[in-house]
């Protein structure tokens, strides 16, 4: 066990803790904040099953974005699907034995890495070259893309250029999960990759990555259109009724 192994072990414990606690607090806040009025963007489903279907379309297909702008939709969708595949592929480093469906995804997961980079670069190009999007971009918007490109390309680098000791990596993470530390292979690219991933996890609950939990709480999407049939009232609004 070298110092770097300890450092990364601590870093990942910290990252998981910050991300989990941060997200939990955020989600709890969203959950607790009432939506006092019915504001689904209509036409909207009139039943909760319909709402589930609408949300599923938003989350899996990015329906609204599709209506909006095919470029952003295409690039964004490719990026997210690729990310999902890549994440699924990475489960192999955390499971023993590896789940069969993860093995099945393995070849797709690898090439998804390229799609991910392509999607991010495309979005970045828009951020730089489309005047309107450049106008609204903050430094953090660009840094987020730096982070993603860094993570994806360091990962691809380890797969295609300078192979890392994946068995060692797996032992390290399985060890982390069981609080039984194993050394992390000493590999520069791997260090970069892991540091960036931990960084992303830490900023998750403090950044625009909150769009991920946020969408589930968006009242314009998650409310059923039934205000005449069901009385909808927030606790703080109910208090007003007591007054008169």
């Amino acid at each position, binding site marked *: 066990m070298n110092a770097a192994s300890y450092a990364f072990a601590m870093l990942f414990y910290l990252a998981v803790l910050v991300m989990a606690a941060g997200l939990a607090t955020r989600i709890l806040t969203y959950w607790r904040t009432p939506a006092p009025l019915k504001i689904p963007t*209509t036409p909207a489903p009139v039943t909760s099953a319909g709402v589930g279907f609408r949300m599923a379309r938003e989350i899996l297909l990015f329906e609204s974005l599709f209506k909006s702008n095919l470029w952003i939709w295409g690039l964004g969708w490719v990026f997210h699907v690729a990310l999902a595949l890549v994440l699924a592929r990475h489960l192999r480093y955390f499971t023993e034995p590896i789940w069969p469906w993860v093995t099945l995804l393995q070849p797709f997961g690898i090439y998804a890495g390229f799609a991910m980079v392509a999607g991010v670069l495309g979005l970045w190009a828009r951020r730089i070259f489309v005047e309107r999007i450049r106008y609204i971009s903050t430094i953090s918007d660009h840094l987020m893309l730096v982070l993603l490109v860094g993570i994806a390309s360091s990962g691809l680098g380890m797969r295609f250029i300078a192979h890392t000791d994946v068995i060692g990596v797996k032992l390290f993470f399985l060890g982390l999960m069981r609080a039984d530390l194993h050394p992390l292979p000493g590999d520069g690219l791997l260090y970069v990759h892991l540091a960036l991933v931990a960084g992303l996890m830490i900023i998750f609950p403090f*950044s625009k990555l909150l769009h991920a939990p946020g969408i589930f709480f968006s009242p314009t999407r998650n409310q059923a259109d039934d205000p005449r049939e069901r009385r909808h009232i927030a606790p703080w609004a109910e208090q007003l009724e007591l007054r008169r």
Partner: protein
Amino acid sequence: MAVELKAPALREYPVVPALQSDAMKDVVSYVANEKIQEAIGFPGKLDEGWQERAISKMGDLLGKYRSLRVFMDACVHCGACTDKCHYFIGTQDPKNMPVARQDLMRSVYRRYFTTAGKLFPRLVGARDLTRGVLDDWFRYYHQCSECRRCSVFCPYGIDTAEITMAGREILDAVGYGQKYSNEIIGKVHRIGNNLGLPGPALRDTLLGLEEDVKDETGVDVRYPLDEKGADVLLVTPSADFFAEPHVDSLIGYGKVFHAAGISWTLSSYSSEAGNFGMFIGNYEQLRKIAMRIREAALELGVKRIVVGECGHAWRVAYSFWNTLVGIGAGGKDPFAIELQRQLDPRHKQPTHICELTWDLIERGALRFDKDANDHRTITFHDSCNVARGSRMGDAPGGQFEIPRNIIRAVANKFVEMSPEVTRERTFCCGGGGGLLTDELLDLRIKGALPRMESLKQVVDNHGVNFMATICAICKAQFTKVLPYYGFKMSMVGGVHQLVSTAIRLGDSH
């Protein structure tokens, strides 16, 4: 002020315009004076300590409105909404891009309510709430008509209207309100309607209408006021009582009730369907104004509440009345039960006048001379609040079909505008959301650009000469801005104006 207002040129191929920073910096709505502010319970003027009060109000709203809370965090600056706002398209001012409008507040939110913004303000675009920022809020939160078009296209459903409402709510709370909306709200409380039309004047107007209709048709159609025991209470925007072309729709409603044999009444106490409480985002005002309708309904003992042609009023009525004052079904609290006991559960409460008319048509209770509308080639402008904030009938999208069905039932020539700009994608008329005031005329003209472009297409290709709509603000706004684009102002009118032209009043001789 002798600046000549001009309409922007219609574009043959609507491409996304280039940005022109600060293009609309000088188009600012009037600030409410102390009297107006205090009359509705807001501080009179911007005083020492406003900054703290604004931040604390913002914190208060973040705790009360999930929409605001989630929308402040969720935006990823993807830019999908940037070209969706009619005010951006017409003015090219980047701060009129929906996300930029949101960012006026988001930057402040980040500074005071997020870790990242407290630690690294420049990195995440966080700013202190300075007087300059507050002025920008006032400016650009009064260049948004709360039309929700942006919310259709945002991957997270972020509705800039919610942010604008919160912005106005904070401005009001620090004594920096808008004259137009707040003055009108004061009038509703004092007199009963937005126009400040007192009961006796209303009675005269209605008597005049009865005479006009008698002269024109030979039939005694009644326009009753404050008649206890009527079945239907009609609540309609007060513009219907005297403005052109609004009044023609009011005449139409009366004819429908007459032909169907439904007893109805207007109320002088509650002679306004509009509810500007929504525009300023103030729940208590929203509720107080809606309460007048509930009180009138209880007082008059009606069985059904019907709402006339008004966009935001219908959103408030359909989406909010049940919440605000228990007009609707399903409430189990004493407050709502009291009203449910009186209203007839076989009807949807409230009912839109178009729902009522279409239902009668479907049941064969109304007959029409469609040819009477043959001098018109009609198109339909979907009003934003009806399209994206409400429904009619049983199925989603009824708010689009029902008015069109009525038009097809009463007229022969109906043409649709491009599907890119109708139904849920409709463009606001440019005058909604508390912006229908003269000092914003420049904005209103420019904001109408996208609608004018699609209108021009059907005028050129199909000879359209009438644009029907079911909103008092749309009617007033178009009457004013159509001429700037070379159209006749008489081109715009209500759906019930068409009904009025074609309806057969059974007992006519």
